[in-house]
């Protein structure tokens, strides 16, 4: 790093990815609260999960992330895992 005064820590991608996670989580919770114990809530969860994963893919393309072994890549991976994991109760619960 010596004598390089430009920031090398790329946090925009992880922050965008985690924002997608947050939106996905809140939508899932809203659906399950508005349609309690109804199958519709599960279908909505599946739909929101697909949309969230597509959004992550879009971020990956936009930010030109090519490897998971980088902070942007790990941020995307972490968010993807959290999104799929959060949706699990709707799919198998």
């Amino acid at each position, binding site marked *: *790093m010596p004598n390089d005064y430009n920031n090398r*820590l790329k946090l925009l991608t992880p922050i965008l990815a985690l924002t997608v996670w947050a939106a996905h989580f809140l939508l899932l*919770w809203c659906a399950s609260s508005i349609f309690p114990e109804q199958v519709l809530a599960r279908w909505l969860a599946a739909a929101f999960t697909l949309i969230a994963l597509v959004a992550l893919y879009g971020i990956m393309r936009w930010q030109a992330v090519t490897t998971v072994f980088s902070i942007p890549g790990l941020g995307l991976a972490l968010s993807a895992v959290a999104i799929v994991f959060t949706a699990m109760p709707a799919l198998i619960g």
Partner: protein
Amino acid sequence: MKSETGFDHSLYALFPTHHKRPEGEREELERIWCKPRGWEYLTAVNNNYIGFYYIATAFLFFLLAGVLALGMRVQLTAPLLQILPQETYNQFFTMHGTVMMFLFAVPMVEAIGVLLLPQMLAARDLPFPRLSAYAFWAYLVGGLCFFASLFVGLAPDGGWFMYPPLTSIAYSPGINADFWLLGIGFIEISAIAGAIEIIVGVLRTRAPGMTLDRMPMFAWAMLVFAAMIIIAFPSVILSTLLLELERAFNWPFFDPTRGGDPMLWQHLFWFFGHPEVYIIFLPAAGLMSMMVSTVARTPLVGYRLNVLALVATGFISFGVWAHHMFATGMPRLSTGYFSAASMAVSLPAGIQVFCWIATLASGKIRWSTPALFVVGSVLVFTMGGLTGVMVGMVPFDWQAHDTYFIVAHLHYVLIGGMVFPMFAAFYHWVGMTSSRPLSERVGKWVFWLQFVGLHVTFLPMHLTGFMGMPRRVYTYMPGRGLDLLNQISTVGAFIMGAGVVLFLIDLARNFRFTTNDDAGNIYGGSTLEWLPTGLYSTRSIPVVRSRDPLWDDPKICDDVEQGRYFLPGSVTGLRETIVTSPINAEPQYLQLMPGPSVWPLAAAVLTAGFFLALTVQAYMFSAVSGVIGLACVLRWLWETDRPIQQDKADIGAGITVPISITGPQSHGWWALNTLFTVMGMIVLMGLFGYLYLYGIHPEVWIAAPPVLQTLGISLVLVLAIVAAWMSRRVLAMTKRGEFAGQGPWLLGVLGAMLLGAASWWDVAGWDSAGLDPAASGQGATVFVLIAFQGFTVAIAAIMAVYLGYRSGKGLLTTPTNVTLDIVVRFIGYTALQGLAIVLLTRLYPGA
């Protein structure tokens, strides 16, 4: 990659400079940043003093809450003891939890930030020193008054989470609950003030060259911590306001018989309450990351991973609030989501723990007292984290809920995650503020007593919890196998207490507060706080070329001390620091900083008087305190934003920057945006409450006023924005140094008047539609949103009048002015906030 601001990076090569510095430069710095004497200690605003006061006060509350804990343990030593009567026991556990969470944990980490951050970032001070002083004095006065309620039997007794209906006026008719609601609401305002200071400080006052990638881990942690406070704390401020309004004016937010719902409290409270755990943990994790590196004498393994983990924890911790509500009968799917998120949050926390372990494993550990606390902390926090994953599973939580298993879990997490790192930090950083280090030998005893005491106290509680012993009950029945385990826990608590007493003895023997003759870098830390410092922080502000500058550049201490870097003296003869860009930390301008003042103290005391008088229903006294308090705030602001002759400053090596600018590049702009985020979150949570209650009780909803009226109110609010924008335009069209006339401030006043008119129209409209705040949840939520808007409008009006007064005194500089900039942006924000409230409450299909 290009420069962020147009600053030429090759200029950094000019440092360290080689010219001889002028005589008397350092002496002038010492004169400007002089030491207070006598009563002046009350007016000090410098971070060295405020940070120290803050830490001492937070530690006092830790001791007080610890004494309460010992009292409870004595009561539980044997079944059916009557040492503490039931009512007193209820007050003890409520105050223990409340004081530990609100008066110790959050203020302590904020205090450590106030003390360490300026030196760590090589800034002269935090950007708003008087705000820091106000936050501290408000916390001290409010906290002491709050704690004193215990001595007159008026302490809150409904648990630290104050669930209604137990805390509603029907079941808690005294003023005990009011002490909690108003006291905590007030103290949280102080925490938010501190958070704004920290966000702007970390992002805008770093030493040149300290890119985000070179920031000390503690600064990263404090940045995430402060951002979380900004998002989470408005929720608890709103919830305390709602419950107080229900108790005082019978507005039924939480009364299900009139369209309210007690679950709304739980959502609002835990939306703050669970992130609060991470708000406490993350700064301690930042301290840990720095100490681990020093202890192991090697750079932190996985610096960027650690930053990612901090940010991810900050996000995911907002998805776990309802895991405190698994037993409330939420929809099954919802509990599943929160359970999954509760497990997911352990991923980033795990990353941090593995980074620490890897660092310790890759370096050569020196087994000093901080090292013992650091390693103990990793162990204890991991144990607490594992039981956290257990209670994150819904069926397990149903079994363990409200038992001593949870008490054990949360103490392992909080002591491992915050208390041990705090003691480690005391030993590690004491050399910055004391002329003598603390004793290593005694420190090791302190650690072992606390470590052993912790396990003796809380390990048995897992078993008593499994055996069904409920929390928050003042006794238990004999013959259920609980006696011995409780006796062991009590012994353990006193062993821990002995550790704390030993620490106090060590402090008394060795700690000698100093600002210029400190013991120094005892453990060989690598970051800038270990540069030689005075009250002005470092003599000159270095160019940062790596994450561990003191290890990588052995000459840096001498060069900084000889004034060979930025700002080696005072350019204007005033207190000043360099404001840098948020990402690359490129020098942007010179900020003039306010000096000591009695007004923050006076404002804090009177704000506390305002809230405390409300608690005891002394409304006239409260109103008078509020008005005088406001006058004090305006008086303190009066001395800021003064016109100065000089508009550019040489900050070293011939590099010149402007002095005190306005607009998006200015630090004040960032602070105001942060405040808008806080206010926006309060409104957002209020709107959530509105929608939530509609979802639960749509049958009590009435139709909204006519759409045409809604459009009319919206138009008035848009006109207010136009007036504010015009105000700035008129000023901008005036030539530098010329008088702008009466236009700018009059347009500001017009904007505020339009805001007031819109609010009045909104209230009248709902009133004529037949909405009564005491009749239904809809009425209560609509009117509380309007009341908040009215409060904001009142502030905007006061600001506009203040602007007019400054204009009359010739303080309205042209073509830009910081005060005007703030006032017109506040008016614009208030109009947008009003639009959001009006449109959602009136156009939402449920209405």
